């Protein structure tokens, strides 16, 4: 992975993530988050995980974020732009500081461990190996995920059900 590509992609990613948090209009936040996810997909691609990159594009950028944007449009919020942030500014400064503290705490721990250089370490796997591992080593997790998704589908329908629905019968 070339440093130029990595640095440019990461700067863009950080800027978009900040904009997600700081934009007052929730719709703009959602669009910036979609951009950030597309950017992250390219980072995955550079990390020799093309399948994960494509799934990231399809699931996150294509499905989840479209759903977010759609729900936001359905709500059509007008008054929310003035009071996007909770609490008063002083408390928010403390929140920012605590997030910074979190970042500093984890990263200071991180740099006390040994580093691994990128050259030669990155091995490209084909998708067959990925599938084989998924269906042998992680088969239990895979089944559990299937169950979870079923539960979620039922739960989401039960939560947002309306009497009558869109159909006549």
């Amino acid at each position: 992975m070339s440093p130029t590509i990595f640095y440019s992609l990461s700067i863009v990613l950080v800027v978009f993530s900040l904009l997600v948090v700081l934009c007052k209009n929730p719709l703009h936040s959602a669009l910036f988050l979609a951009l950030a996810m597309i950017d992250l997909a390219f980072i995955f691609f550079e990390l020799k995980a093309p399948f994960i990159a494509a799934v990231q594009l399809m699931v996150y950028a294509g499905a989840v974020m479209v759903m977010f944007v759609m729900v936001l449009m359905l709500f059509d919020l007008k008054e929310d732009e003035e009071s996007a942030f909770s609490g008063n500014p002083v408390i928010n400064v403390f929140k920012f500081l605590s997030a910074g503290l979190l970042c500093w705490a984890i990263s200071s721990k991180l740099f006390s461990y040994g580093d691994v250089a990128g050259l030669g370490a990155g091995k490209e796997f084909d998708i067959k190996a990925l599938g084989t591992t998924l269906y042998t080593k992680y088969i239990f997790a895979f089944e559990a995920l299937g169950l979870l998704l079923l539960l979620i589908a039922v739960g989401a329908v039960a939560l947002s059900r309306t009497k009558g629905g869109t159909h006549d019968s």
Partner: protein
Amino acid sequence: MGADIFEISINIIKILVIFLLMVQIVPLLVWVERRGSAFIQNRFGPNRVGPLGLTQLLADAVKFLFKEEFVPSKGKKFLFYAAPVIALVPGALAFASIPLSAPILVDAFEMFGKSWGPYRFAFQGFEMGVGIVFVLGISSLGAYALLMAGWASNNKYSMYGALRACAQMISYELALGLALVGILLIYGTFDFAEMVAYQEGPLSFFFMGKEVIVPFLPNWGIFYQPLGAVLLFCAMFAETNRTPFDLPEAEAELVAGYHTEYGGLKMLMFYIGEYGHMLVASALMATFYFGGYNLPFISTEAVNAFFAGFGFSATKASIVTAFALHVVLFTKILLFLWVFIWVRWTLPRFRYDQLMDLGWKTMLPWALANTIITAALVLLMRTEWL
């Protein structure tokens, strides 16, 4: 790395040409759409400007270019301008990752006093191991353009069009993805070039672990996966927002849906995006189910040998082969594009609940059943029983 100037410049030219190919097919398709609709509805269609009305396109282009630019008041200006541009991106990127012909092999040669090594140029924008997953991922981004257009227009009709478009695209993406699983199980690869290579020669499959050859049928995916092909084609119609799935722009109810407020060149860009989607859909159909760029029964090597028989050098024969096979693929693509147009002027539009029922209650279960049956059959057929 190891790429030199020649290779880099060829790659840049390739990407430009593929984008232009997508943009340039639009006027042709608009003409076919107008004349075709007139033919289907027993009218004349545009026939005054030029022979067969062919230069009507030029008049249209001039009209599109000189229309007034405007942004709706209280609309979101940036998003309003960004939406048509974004509408172009998914189609172009997806089209660039589909192989349009056999790769060109260039032998080592001398130019400008330097020797340039042997090259292999794929006839596609970029080669990707995960081809089809990438195409699905990219084309699912198409919903953003519609959503942004609908939101930025500050118009209720646009908004409803955008919401409909989005719900439709998300619903049909499931059926689309599942319809593909069957054919992927048979080919055992995500790579388009390998899929095309699989479909060479006469129909041959394994039955109880023994190879069976049917000499009078080509080895095309449609004979393995007829149901998958039909489901995929229907889902593609929904993804491209064409009739009978053109609820997002239902002109009787919603004026023009998400592009109500757009005019001139911005409108044209939405058109190009839509036709680009159609082009990608047709190319995918041809690649998955109809042998890609190969002629039936004739392998790429045979075509290459045929052209080498004219006394061409290896490089020239490879280039001529690539262009000949490109024509073959485009013939298939144009046939599918004609089906798109034909259906548009034949079938009426669905009602919204019918659309959702078709997607979730009909196509999804059928696609699921297709997947399961294919998986079982592939396992049964390829195992040695005796």
